[in-house]
């Protein structure tokens, strides 16, 4: 029973959503609408799961004094402070509360804009450096395919910025880098990605079918 009920729920939820797609009957739509609202609530809980997991991993690290437990402490403390700012229920003090609110001007919002935003932004901007280094040390014309790839890449890299426009200024329009770039994007790039899109769609559909029919059960976890 520990497997049959979830599989039955999966089947029913899935089949209903399929019917909802093809049948516009108002009773189906009305039920479908409420079901979709349920979906958002349950999915919200699955996000809570991830955050709970994070707390568990870091508290374990601190409890066992594993290497780097100090960093775990930093992580959990800042989290607690920010949660207090953002969710403290007793703090609806005035028209613009600084605590217990997520609105603009609150402490919570300040922490987000001045800590989360720069940290996230900077983390990914590191990649510009790494790409430059890899461009020099690893991107090679090692085969005809790789060569074709790099040539197309170089055209696009130059043609997509104002510099490319400047470099081929005065040439006939259809020989300029911006035109070539747009042509690459609109024709071969479009065609190849359309092929990939269709193939990927089939993969997703096959997976969906297996899940709804209960052939695919790996998401339920290992034990019987």
């Amino acid at each position: 029973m520990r497997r049959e009920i979830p599989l039955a729920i999966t089947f029913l939820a899935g089949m209903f959503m399929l019917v909802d797609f093809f049948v516009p009957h108002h009773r189906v739509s009305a039920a479908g609408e409420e079901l979709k609202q349920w979906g958002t609530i349950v999915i919200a809980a699955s996000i809570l799961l991830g955050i709970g997991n994070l707390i568990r991993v870091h508290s374990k690290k601190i409890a066992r004094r594993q290497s780097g437990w100090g960093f775990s402490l930093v992580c959990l403390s800042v989290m607690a402070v920010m949660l207090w700012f953002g969710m403290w229920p007793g703090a609806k003090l005035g028209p613009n509360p600084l605590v217990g609110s997520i609105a603009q001007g609150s402490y919570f919002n300040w922490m987000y804009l001045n800590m989360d935003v720069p940290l996230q932004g900077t983390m990914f901007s590191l990649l510009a450096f790494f790409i430059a280094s890899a461009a020099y040390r690893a991107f090679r014309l090692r085969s005809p395919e790789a060569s074709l790839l790099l040539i197309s890449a170089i055209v696009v890299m130059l043609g997509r910025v104002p510099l490319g426009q400047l470099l081929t200024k005065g040439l006939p329009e259809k020989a300029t880098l911006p035109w070539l770039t747009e042509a690459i994007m609109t024709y071969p790039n479009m065609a190849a990605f359309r092929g990939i899109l269709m193939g990927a769609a089939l993969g997703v559909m096959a997976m969906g079918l297996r899940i709804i029919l209960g052939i695919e059960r790996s998401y339920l976890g290992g034990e019987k």
Partner: protein
Amino acid sequence: MNWLQELFTGAPGTPPSAVWGTWVAGLLTLAIYSFLYKDNPVYRFAESLFVGVGAAYWLAILYHNTLVPKLFVPLFFPPEGQPVLWYRVFPGVLAAFMLLRFFPKLSWLSRWSLGFVVGMYAAVNTTGFAQGDLVAQIHATVTTPLTSGGGLVIALNAAAIVGVIATLIYFFFSKEHRGPVGAAARLGIWFLMVAFGASFGYTVMGRVSLLIGRMTFLLRDWLHLMQ
């Protein structure tokens, strides 16, 4: 020193909290960049901060923007003149089951919630991909204009149709890539490589843009060096 003063007080009219904020943001930015020299405790400190702030933000906004309006208000505090949506108890129970994962004895109940979510997503994705990425793309390929736009455009459009077919053949696994199938697959890989080249160029562009964004912050908003 006008500039030095501005560094610590901001442009005229800037509230102190904003100046503070910019300083915090600036120092955290540098802490992350220190990774470029090598992995170090300052970087790891900033990284832990990143994880903590991120999780707290997510939890709070989930509470305020999803759980309160969708679950708590309809169940416990319905707006005046509106009935209690008692049937929201069901997703509430499923949501609670989901959290039972943390209790090994009861974690099997979380599969009910998982089953619900996974089944729904599976169906929604199936129809979405079928309509948007399969049928709509077939339609668009079949109706590619081949009679207007001038010789070059017609040729390029025709080439694009051939490209779609060749790419599909490249990802065909039920036959060896020999003979005509092999030739078509070969053509397919060329199309793929040109497309990946475009992707490469665009990815480089994206990463560089992110760096430009951070540098604009450092040089303008923090250090006031840009006009």
